[in-house]
């Protein structure tokens, strides 16, 4: 059961007939989807379902076999997109032998942004107290936030975050989701992958992947209505159960 969301504006991301093979695994065999502009889109699915691979295709790092991936009307990986797109991978992508501030400063300079950005983004992820510490001496959750801080540099049109809240406590997680919501209110489009199903309710749109297929493109309210379940977690289990039954 696949439904398409009808966005008001042209989609920020559109994927058509995407085929990707990684090693011997055929991850996608003709994937189609769109991501609404100015929306907070949650990318959900079991481990190994292809979330990271889809994200890598969107940011132009994934070698693909066939299909089109367009971001803001340009082919994924287009040089112009490097100023308009920010990406934080599932691996932190942080220099462990630099301090938090030095990490952020490096990417700020690469982006040609003013030095004042450094403090702003470190503040946004609540790491001001750790700014002068070596990244290699931080906890997993702190490292995750350094990675997120780098993605907030500048004024990207699209921010793509691969599991940004892994290893964070509930208080911090709520704070970050508040930040994501504020960003979309300013017109930024966000794609956030997650394992935590209750985070789904904070999204505008939801994409559910399973074994490289789009099982559902929906939103939190319709998700519960469609499945008749009380919460997102059970709703997803129900969707996956239905998908398994249909596959048989």
């Amino acid at each position: 059961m696949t439904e398409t969301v009808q966005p008001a504006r042209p989609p920020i991301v559109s994927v058509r007939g995407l085929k990707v093979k990684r090693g011997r695994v055929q991850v996608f065999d003709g994937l189609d989807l769109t991501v609404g502009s100015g929306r907070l889109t949650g990318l959900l699915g079991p481990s190994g379902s292809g979330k990271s691979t889809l994200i890598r295709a969107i940011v132009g790092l994934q070698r693909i076999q066939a299909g089109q991936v367009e971001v803001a009307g340009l082919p994924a990986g287009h040089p112009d997109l490097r100023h308009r797109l920010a990406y934080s991978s599932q691996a932190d992508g942080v220099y462990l032998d630099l301090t938090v501030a030095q990490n952020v400063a490096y990417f700020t300079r690469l982006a040609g942004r003013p030095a004042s950005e450094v403090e702003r983004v470190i503040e946004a992820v609540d790491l001001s107290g750790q700014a002068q510490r070596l990244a290699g001496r931080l906890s997993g959750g702190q490292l995750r936030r350094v990675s997120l801080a780098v993605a907030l540099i500048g004024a990207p049109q699209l921010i793509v975050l691969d599991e940004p809240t892994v290893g964070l406590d509930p208080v911090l997680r709520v704070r970050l989701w508040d930040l994501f919501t504020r960003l979309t209110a300013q017109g930024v489009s966000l794609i956030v992958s997650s394992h935590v199903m209750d985070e789904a309710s904070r999204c505008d749109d939801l994409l559910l992947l399973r074994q490289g297929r789009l099982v559902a493109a929906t939103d939190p309210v319709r998700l519960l209505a469609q499945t008749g379940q009380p919460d997102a977690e059970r709703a997803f289990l129900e969707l996956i159960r239905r998908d398994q039954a249909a596959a048989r």
Partner: protein
Amino acid sequence: MRPRWLVTAGRILTQLSHDRRTVALLLVVPALLVGLFAWLYQSDQVFQRIGPMVMALFPFILMFLVTSVATLRERRSGTLERVLTAPGSKADLICGYALAFSLVAVLQTGVTVGFSVWVCRLELAGSVLQLLGVAVVDAVLGTALGLLVSAFARTEFQAVQFLPVFVFPQIILGGVFMPRQQMPRALELISDFMPLSYAIDGVSQVAAGQGGWVVGRPLLIMAAFAVGCLVAASATLPRRTP
């Protein structure tokens, strides 16, 4: 706005500055090894011939190793992907590496030459400044080759194995063990295509007090090799990976 390759070179040097032990090893070890040679050959003239050649080996070998490890680490930690999705070209990254490590090489060679001349009594007929110049090109060459081959390494183990594959043959055929003119013809021809041969040649000529084209020629060939490797490295560094 500062050029991105300068920004990247600054970042790499800052990383090094947090790793004092590596810096100490990079700066001191080559000098100590030259000292070992001086001690070994203290009674005869062999050191006066081999000393300068050995000086040509270190910037090349060490920069090759350090660069391979640094870029591989960058790839494995996800920072490379991040840099590749940030504004800037691959050439910015490559040139940043080349610049940062050639600055380290200047320091390294300064220490090595100083130690060789003042402590080990190596007699230099040529100028110390010229020797530094050749050593810097030598180091850039090592960095460039390291950048190029590390694109083909998937793991740390592979990267380290590239040392015996790409560097050892150049040392063996480079003229330290036997003058290149005396080698079997086939090997001499092969060594003509190995950049380290020209580094060893250049340093020896400077040490012997030669100048002009005798030094200029190997220097130019080294520079051409280095530029070739850097261009190839930035062409082969893939943005998209499987």
